[in-house]
């Protein structure tokens, strides 16, 4: 999963608590500088919901909020840990190359 993968960004946003579509778009814009279009956002929400990683909450409003499920939180943790490991190794290698030069 890429760090700009809409699914990962949506899950990272929902890690802070339940949000509806507009709030997710704003939050993703702030944390990753990525503007998710409505088609991309709901494509990601549909995929994540189907895989049981997020779930919709009841709402009287048209703007239905979503939250991370337990397996969604686990999947997000695994993905971010993996990305963190890769980032740490990559940055370490860059630093080593810079010191040799």
């Amino acid at each position: 999963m890429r760090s700009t993968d809409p699914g990962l960004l949506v899950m990272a946003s929902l890690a802070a608590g339940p949000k509806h579509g507009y709030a997710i778009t704003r939050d993703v814009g702030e944390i990753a500088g990525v503007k998710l279009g409505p088609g991309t956002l709901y494509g990601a929400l549909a995929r994540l919901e189907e895989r049981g990683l997020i779930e919709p909450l009841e709402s009287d409003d048209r703007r239905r909020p979503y939250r991370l499920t337990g397996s969604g939180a686990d999947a997000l943790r695994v993905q971010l840990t993996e990305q963190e490991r890769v980032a740490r190794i990559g940055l370490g290698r860059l630093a080593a190359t810079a010191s040799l030069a």
Partner: protein
Amino acid sequence: MSKRLLGLYPQAWRRRYGDEMAALLETSPPGPRTAFDLLRGAMLAHLRSAVRATPLERARVSVSGVLGCFICFCFAGSAFAKTTEARQFTVAGRSHDLLGGAHYAAVVAAVVAAGMLAAAAAPLAVCAIAQARRTHSRELTRLIAVPPLAALAWIASLGGLALWLSAHQHRAGAVAWALLVLSAIVTVGAAASCWFASRAILRRLTLTPRRLALPVVALCGVTACMGAVALATAVYFVAILTDAPALAASADGPGGWSNTTLDIALQLTVMIVLSGAAALSAVRAARGLRAAS
């Protein structure tokens, strides 16, 4: 504009996410980027629903796919008939067996295809009317009324054009051109309405695999006839180039802006592409039906 693009999403998707997306669109600035994002999303949603559809759903979608190909094929076939309607083509057909035979074969295959299409449509139409009466569904009744109304509009536009031309000794003029353009628009509109209505009816019908069996078999026949028309047109194309090169090079189209070779080549290409697409849809429909049975 953006909200209209939501209509491009699959029906099930719109039922589930339509309101939420509409609410989101009210807060996001409309623009080409949003429009493109929605178009892309709609396309992916259709692909996803096609992959995840049940075999019977796949069969239904494929049936409307064959129908869509056939409707477009009719335009190419009509264009071929129009290109080769002049007397010199009939004379050439009588002088050259291959040319005349290929033209005759194309016409016969087209007539058989139309008959098979009627055989495919009849049980579905009966089923749709029965369901509309049973459920008192106004929506289904309106959809059922679309194809006959579209056909009436088409006949009226062609009839109007023919009457005008015969009353004015087939002289080209501004009114004749306007009627021709109007008739072309009505023809395309009627064809598109028929396809959209039949697609919508198919989606709403409560169908068992058994009820869909005859239409699928008949549509396989329609597809085979489309292939036969394309083959006969290909033979005609080769025959006219070899047997009647002067006729092949003759001017064609309104005002003679095109030529016969180019036009038949274009018509043939469209026929081959649509026959291939229809064959793929027919195979998909047959497979879906077999899996559902």
